[in-house]
């Protein structure tokens, strides 16, 4: 048996049912940054693609293997970043994700893995 319905916040539930922007970007690799973290053993793998135009994130996609919290975390992060500045990418903190999605403590590792994948994206932004 697993986690009960009631333990998911409305935001998590909504993202789980409508994980819009899941998938991959259909633009050349040169116009995007990518990050990926997690393992199936940890029960969570996430991959981000963010389309960069100058200092702005113009689009983004994710793929995710994980629990509903994990799916929501990936989707939420992409929603936050699109339309914003590239410098935001490295600035999303696990605590923010946890608060936005009402993560239970035992799910904090999801936010940490997301942060890790975002850091990879941020590093690529800097390189460019």
């Amino acid at each position, binding site marked *: 048996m*697993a986690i009960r319905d009631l333990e998911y916040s409305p935001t998590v539930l909504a993202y789980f049912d409508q994980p819009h922007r899941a998938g991959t970007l259909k633009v050349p690799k040169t116009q995007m940054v990518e990050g990926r973290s997690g393992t*199936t053993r940890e029960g969570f793998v996430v991959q981000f693609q963010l389309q960069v135009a100058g200092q702005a994130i113009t689009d983004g996609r994710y793929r995710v293997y994980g629990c*509903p919290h994990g799916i929501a975390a990936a989707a939420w992060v992409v929603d936050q970043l699109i339309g914003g500045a590239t410098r935001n990418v490295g600035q999303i903190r696990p605590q923010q994700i946890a608060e936005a999605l009402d993560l239970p403590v035992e799910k904090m590792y999801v936010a940490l893995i997301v942060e890790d994948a975002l850091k990879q994206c941020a590093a690529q932004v800097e390189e460019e």
Partner: protein
Amino acid sequence: MTKRVYMDYAATTPVDPCVIEEMNRYLGPSDLFANPASSHWAGAEAKKAVEGARERIAHKLGAHPTEIVWTSGATESNNLALKGVAAYYQTKGRHIVTARTEHKAVLDSAQALQSEGFEVTFLTPDESGVVHPDQIKSVLRNDTILVSLMHVNNEIGVIQDIHAVADICRARGVLFHVDGAQSVGKLPIDLSRLPVDLLSFCAHKIYGPKGVGGLFVRRHPKVNLSPLQHGGGHEYGFRSGTVPSHLVTGFAHAVELAVDHMGVESTRIGTLKKRLYDGLRDTPRILLNGAVGTTVPNILNVSFAGVEGESLLHGLRNLAVSSGSACASASREPSYVLRALGRDDALAQASIRFSLGRFSTESEVDFASALVAEQVARLRDLAPECLISDI
């Protein structure tokens, strides 16, 4: 309203309306509510009902009424069998044999005995969940006092060859306890021919009430037990406490219904299970837990590669099924049963036990397979591509 389907009959069942009717007769206002231990006419009538219930169950199982001890459920029956035998026969030996895929009521009891100095051998079944009688034979020792094996596994439905094990134990003079919570009323059991010494079972898996169970304790050859619960010496001294007449009469009714309709019901449910499995097989990369032909008709357990277990279960939230995650906790512990069968953690967690029952229908089964197909496909689509071959 959202369509929802209950497909968790192995966890518990609704109580049959005829059983409810019988139970309610013992709650009042007629005098049948009396304490069966009371000496007045009302107590005598309640006692008659309680002893009648014992006879009814004994009759359906090929036992003698005095061999049936009432308990509060299969958990208590299992505890009483293991700890009761251990305490009573400890001077004869302190070695017990069981399997790693038993129900927690057996495993935790065995562990409690370990901490009291008993030695327990936990056998690992093969990858389809079968414990081979030879495995048992090879670990019996001169100081082995008890072998405990479940008849039908609650997670994957695999059936053990308890007759062969019983013969081995009988030949070696070792007591044999069977956890029959998932088999009584579902598989034919004739204790007059099957040489098991103790059999645990309960009502709520077969359309009877929760809160009542039974322990068969053989009289010939005589099996002894130290009681776990003291207080007046009810139940031949094996289990004290006021006997809940409404529960035991309902229990008897449930056993009768289950045994009397076993043939028809298991055929019908077996057909439904086949339909469900056929439906599920449209989804690629699924693995059956428990080999075809070795499992009961009402349980189907399948692992879904490439899908995370918790999301799968949430995707199936309108289908009441059990998953391969253990316990009602937020922990991500994968099922110890599936782990013992060799499934890795991720697969164990992405496993679903579908269990069918008296009120399951074809349309429910079709709803289930369609929902599973949709959700598994959707979740696999979400996953990073590299994982597709990964898991």
